[in-house]
């Protein structure tokens, strides 16, 4: 069999495309759920880590460190195969979303912390001198600037989360990679894997370019 017939077999593309599209939908949904919940929880954990009472702040730091150290695949397998033994039986989707969110949240918290700490102390003092409440200081002064700083690293984290959704195929999730390996075995031809790879690239390349753009823009602003 020739190269094109093996890796870009048109008949195989046509017959496996619906399967791959359904996998792409699952991948997108899993990525979106994990990214959004990771962002919201990550911001919360960052604020706890920076401003809460000492015990809470230490707990947040331990959480961040632990979940940045554990390999996602290991966490996923523990969540999926170990938790049922203590009576917590999550569906494949819930297990994957939980593991991805826990890890994404830890990284997001570190990114937000770095962003907030990059705001000069003087702005906190000025806000306090103006009599702004803690909530107004954060929402109106600090976070809008911090978010500008953290958008490129956050986008990077989003890219990583979407790529990591492929690990969910080990817990019987019908995501893009899973559907591609299935189609590959059904057709006995590797074309579906190549198509899946192209789909991942088509999905993430724009985001990768966006990060580059934002970083350049940000550099321009800070050097002004």
């Amino acid at each position: 069999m020739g190269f094109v017939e093996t890796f870009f077999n048109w008949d195989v593309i046509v017959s496996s495309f619906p399967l791959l599209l359904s996998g792409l939908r699952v991948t997108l949904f899993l990525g979106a759920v994990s990214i959004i919940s990771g962002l919201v929880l990550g911001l919360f954990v960052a604020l706890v880590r920076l401003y809460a009472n000492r015990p809470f702040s230490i707990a947040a730091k331990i959480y961040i460190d632990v979940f940045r150290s554990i390999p996602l695949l290991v966490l996923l397998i523990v969540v999926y195969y170990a938790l049922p033994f203590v009576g917590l039986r999550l569906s494949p989707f819930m297990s994957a979303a939980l593991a991805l969110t826990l890890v994404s949240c830890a990284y997001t918290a570190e990114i937000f912390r770095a962003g907030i700490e990059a705001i000069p102390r003087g702005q906190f003092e000025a806000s306090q001198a103006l009599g702004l409440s803690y909530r107004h200081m954060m929402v109106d002064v600090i976070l809008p600037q911090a978010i500008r700083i953290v958008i490129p690293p956050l986008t990077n984290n989003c890219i990583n989360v979407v790529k990591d959704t492929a690990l969910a195929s080990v817990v019987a999730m019908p995501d893009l990679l899973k559907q591609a390996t299935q189609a590959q075995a059904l057709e006995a031809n590797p074309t579906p894997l190549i198509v899946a790879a192209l789909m991942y690239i088509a999905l993430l390349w724009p985001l990768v370019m966006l990060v580059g753009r934002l970083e350049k823009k940000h550099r321009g602003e800070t050097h002004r």
Partner: protein
Amino acid sequence: MKSFLSGLAPAAVSLCVLCVLNANAVAADLVVGANIGNVPWEFQESSGEFVGFEIDLVKEIGARLGKSVEVVNIPFNGLFSAVQAGRIDIAVSSITITDKRLRSVAFAQPYYDSAQSLTVLSKSPASGLADMRGKVIGVDTGSTGDMWTTSNQARHGFAEIRRFEGLAPAMLDLQSGRVDGYISDIPSLEYFIRDKQHFRIVERIATGETYSMMFAKGNPLVIDVNRVITELKQDGYVAELHERWFSSIPAETSSTVRVAELPAID
């Protein structure tokens, strides 16, 4: 002496580099890919050694061809691209011969007649496929069980099909109740549950499928292996393997005993 040593040092270094580079290339004459854990066809003993019906068969074939055999562990759905990419010469894993697969790969003559089966927890009230309406079914990704379940999903009203990377993870999910039934090759399941009271097979699903070894399309090795399989059937070696691994004598009409043609697309 010094000049001898100084000449030797670079030679030794380059030799080491070559050894490292060639670590994979200095393989056996025949590299065989198998989905280890697929009992009783190919699995790992506690000693770490690979054993099973197909391991015995492929080793005997290697011996008769005068070639050394090395078995590598590859997940079932990865075997297809592994033979096509030439990473392995032969794939064994109770692989069913299908027309669709014959379009991309080659098979030797079949040596086992198989069927699918539905396995449930012993405590489940289910007594057959009829009780699986609205239930979640587990299968192995890309297997014939996957194909059968997918094409019969509407007819039997399965709520969902979950696809696993093999018997072990699927059985874990059957045990934890995430799936209600597992549809897979009957010989593996019979062997797997023989010492596990909490699982039972409630239905045999006749599919008329047969197993054989898989090769890259156009690989002349298939002809040699096929010839040896004919010899081994005539010698009664394959029937002997059947007795060793399934503790029963195969029927005279089965593909385990009867010599068959090289499979081709109808």
